[in-house]
């Protein structure tokens, strides 16, 4: 692990791989002292920000160094089932990249126990990990990806919560409401949520 400076009120902790990042985030989340305001987990890093009047940056670094990583269970009890139609424009191309049939690709996607590693890119855009396969992004991003598109990029599966530009490879579509700004808890999926996909016919 490497800890890097991030201005007056934060540090960035960087880890070897996604697994150790996720594990560290879980132990931070479970033991964070008061004064730690925000944790932003990502693929290899966790950004930790504080209220500088309640905890200093040196004490923050000491706390991060003292974490016992790997003991906390990552996935929490919340499980969400996402209905999906495998009708994405890139489904066949993704199968080709992974050297599989589309049926075996769909089977892999349905059988995987996905877990939300972090939220990024846009409000409610969950990075789901656990698939163990990796797909490159599109060479050129699409100017508009429709809301509800289920897509793959790198080691992650994601669902577009609203229409937006995007470079992930689209394998399917869901009707699930991922983001409702009117709700007190607006995101359906948050870090540590377990996610299963369920195929629906058109």
């Amino acid at each position: 692990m490497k800890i890097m400076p991030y201005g007056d009120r934060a540090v960035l902790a960087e880890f070897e791989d996604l697994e150790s990042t996720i594990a560290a985030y879980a132990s931070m989340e479970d033991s964070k002292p008061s004064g730690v305001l925000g944790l932003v987990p990502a693929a290899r890093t966790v950004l930790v920000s504080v209220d500088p009047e309640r905890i200093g940056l040196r004490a923050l670094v000491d706390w991060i160094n003292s974490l016992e990583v790997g003991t906390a269970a990552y996935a929490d009890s919340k499980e969400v089932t996402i209905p999906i139609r495998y009708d994405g424009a890139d489904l066949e191309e993704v199968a080709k990249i992974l050297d599989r049939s589309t049926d075996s690709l769909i089977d892999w996607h349905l059988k995987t126990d996905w877990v939300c590693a972090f939220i990024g890119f846009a409000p409610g855009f969950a990075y789901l990990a656990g698939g163990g396969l990796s797909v490159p992004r599109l060479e050129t991003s699409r100017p508009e990806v429709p809301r509800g598109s289920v897509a793959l990029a790198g080691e992650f599966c994601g669902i577009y919560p609203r229409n937006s530009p995007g470079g992930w490879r689209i394998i399917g579509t869901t009707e699930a409401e991922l983001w409702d700004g009117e709700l007190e808890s607006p995101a359906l999926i948050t870090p540590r949520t377990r996610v299963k996909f369920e195929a629906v016919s058109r």
Partner: protein
Amino acid sequence: MKALRVINPGALTLVQDRGRSGATAFGVGRSGAMDRAAMALANRLVGNPKDAAGLEILLGGVEFEALGDLWIAVTGSWGLLKVDDLPAEPNTAIRLNAGSRLKLPVTEHGLRFYLAIRGGVDLPPILGSRSRDTLAMIGPDPLRAGDELPIGISSIDPIPVVDLVPVNIPDAGTRQIEVRPGPRRGWFGPENWSKFFEAEWVVSQRSDRRGIRIDGPILGRVKDEELLSEGMLPGAIQVSPDGVPTILGVDHPVTGGYPVIAVVTDPSLDALAQVRPGQVIKFRLATGR
């Protein structure tokens, strides 16, 4: 219930407070007033708690009508205020009688006015804040003519007895902006690090609450890798692959894929909220803790 009626909302008037903390797990950043010191001062002048919601008024040119007797204060940007066509002072509490009209001119210095109303704008909070986040698109919609904003009763203190708070007019010249090193400073090497501090940067027209683009020398990289997305904060200075820096604003994306060379301190981030497109800024390294 008391209310403030919007006669003319100007270019962009938003409900803002101190912003959200702890909503990053939903992919939502801090948001809140861009010039937090100005918003805090306005709230203090009318006896509001620190987290009361007021209005952030981009460029001015707005008009409101008091529905009920109200106490208000205007801070931040600079221009000649008028109450029922008579001049009124900024940076002090002003009494508006029911039916009175408050006019803010197009700003002469700075960029954003802040208007606090005693009792605060009482709209339902989302994720613990009444702030409009222009990236996440949550919180109260931008104001439109005819809107009536309900005013709460959350003020706790009496109106403080101050004639006038000494406040500097936002400076039109070169602004010094303090930064601390960012996590990916090493990606740029010593030469670009020096260039970053020596250059005079011009604030671009393409600047808003999400980010402030600045034009100047190209900051090349010594490390040519793709960065996996990582956490971002207001004030983080991201450098895109073409070498152009952007200072993230309060409505920033929670994660980003460009390396952060430096991070603006909180007081300087407030100052940046008042810097106009075309104005020059220079960076200097913050010292001490």
